[in-house]
């Protein structure tokens, strides 16, 4: 069941998506963390970030909008308080890194590159819910190339994944830019910018006005973007977007994703990732597939 991404082996292709699984240990009493390939922790910045004012979330048809704004405890508290506890589990830890400026990204990347127990860094340049930084680097392929190349240099020891935004004209241009800049893998995709309005009060449902749409509502679009990305890059692609069950995960693997991340489903079904990991194993057994890698990209068009 294992898959290899940038030389790092994951026991199975199921990970949890950043921002939906806290720092992992918060779910330890509700599922077996050892049953999944890896945990991508909540986005980490060098210094703590307070986040956006509420309301921050709103449920929509088959999905939800969020505008959290990167609230996190900062890299020092993460590595001293959360990471040691997380390291005790038999699962890989991937750290999502966030920043407002290039300097922020480089500072936190250098800091984490020296830490033990991190399997990969996931560069978050695609969050739609902060006014500066982040998203800014995912508007033009040239900027994406620059931030990826420089961050890659700041992380000589730990593989660098780049998490891409779907809010672009053609995601393939950004995927190629990352590959050319030396990214080790791509996480596809982050949330879709959306909004909702309270018609009685004539106010936006979110204080930030817009937010990122996630959940099953985005799955078909995310799947198409993963498939497109896999056509143009050789580096591994990790599929994300509305994956809530085994069949969803299989669709992304068939489209070419080497691994998948479970996001919003963790909120309403805390053991969703474990159920999907078990389900993939059952699928392989019943279809007599000896190696899950045989499924990856095996879509017949």
């Amino acid at each position, binding site marked *: 069941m294992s898959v290899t991404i940038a030389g790092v082996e994951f026991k199975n292709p199921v990970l949890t998506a950043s921002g939906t699984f806290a720092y992992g240990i918060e779910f330890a009493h509700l599922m077996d963390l050892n049953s999944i390939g890896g945990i991508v922790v909540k986005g980490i910045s060098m210094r703590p970030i307070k986040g956006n*004012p*509420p309301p*921050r979330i709103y449920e929509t048809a088959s999905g*939800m909008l969020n505008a959290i704004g990167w609230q996190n405890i900062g890299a020092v508290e993460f590595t001293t308080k959360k990471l040691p506890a997380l390291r005790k589990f038999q699962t890989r830890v991937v750290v999502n890194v966030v920043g407002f400026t290039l300097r922020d990204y480089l500072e936190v990347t250098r800091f984490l590159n020296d830490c033990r127990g991190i399997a990969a860094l996931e560069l978050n340049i695609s969050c739609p819910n902060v006014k500066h930084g982040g998203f800014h680097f995912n508007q033009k392929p040239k900027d994406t190339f620059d931030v990826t190349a420089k961050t890659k240099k700041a992380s000589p020891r730990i593989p660098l994944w780049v998490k891409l935004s779907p809010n672009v004209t053609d995601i393939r241009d950004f995927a190629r830019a990352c590959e050319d800049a030396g990214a080790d893998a791509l996480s596809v995709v982050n949330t879709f910018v959306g909004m909702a309005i309270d018609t009685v009060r004539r106010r936006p449902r979110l204080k930030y006005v817009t937010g990122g749409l996630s959940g099953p509502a985005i799955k078909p679009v995310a799947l198409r973007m993963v498939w497109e990305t896999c056509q143009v890059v050789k580096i591994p692609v990790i599929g994300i977007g509305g994956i809530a*069950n085994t069949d969803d995960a299989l669709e992304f693997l068939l489209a070419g994703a080497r691994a998948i991340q479970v996001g919003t489903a963790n909120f*309403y079904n805390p053991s969703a990732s474990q159920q999907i990991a078990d389900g993939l194993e059952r699928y392989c057994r019943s279809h007599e597939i000896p190696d899950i890698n045989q499924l990856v990209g095996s879509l017949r068009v």
Partner: protein
Amino acid sequence: MLDKRVRVRDIRPLGGHNYLLTLDSPEQARRTQPGHFVMIKCSDDVQENPLLRRPFSVFDIKRTPRSGRITGLDILVKDVGIGTRRLVELQRGDQIHSLGPQGQPFRLQDDWRGRLDFACLVAGGVGIAALYLLAHALISKQITPVLFYGGKTAADLVLRDYFEQLGIETHYTSENGSIGEKGLVTLPLSRFLKQHPRSNLRLFSCGPWGMMKATHELAIRQGVDCEVSLEARMGCSLGACMGCVIRAWDQNNEEQYLRVCLEGPVMNSRTVDWNTPPL
């Protein structure tokens, strides 16, 4: 905290779109303290819409009449949207999912016995759900609860009989005057506080934001503590989504965002920024 598939034992309409749901869940009920909540998936299939679970205060713990064995818990549900609609349309025997009990409960200290004269319970509408187990716990500590309960109309003041059976002093208000005093619940509360200027009091409140804010201001004026049970839209109730925050102040009076699911739902009213409603 437990994630349980639970059976609906009973569903009782209370009028005014309010229902009392009894869930068979002895393990969760045994762990419940006053102020705790459970996070309910409104269907048996976890993948059905609406996706997100809904938080409900535990109103009461159910026991068998004879042996007193704990069998489950009651939640108060008001039909206000697609999630609560699904819940109130459930039939006896249907299964749903319950995650909990969880959150910070009301802080009941042992040294209050004999030192606290009154505990004022201030409820608005379905906010009453957070205060019944608390009333019980206070009585067992020999502290006298006094209930202040308000709503728009008489139909909003549900489950009054539970409190009346405890034999406690009650003050009811309604905005249209259909029950109790006409006006807001803070009217009898402020009168009571004026009548007891030197009493050792503590306020406990759950209800609409504006009502809790007014209760907080009365507590400040009286120089007494007030605990509030807050409401927010929750994504996960596990501290993961960071969606249910309220704006609050830390010890240095600096802005911070606290999660209602983990750092709440019960908080000291002084930590809350009452000028930033979370809904």
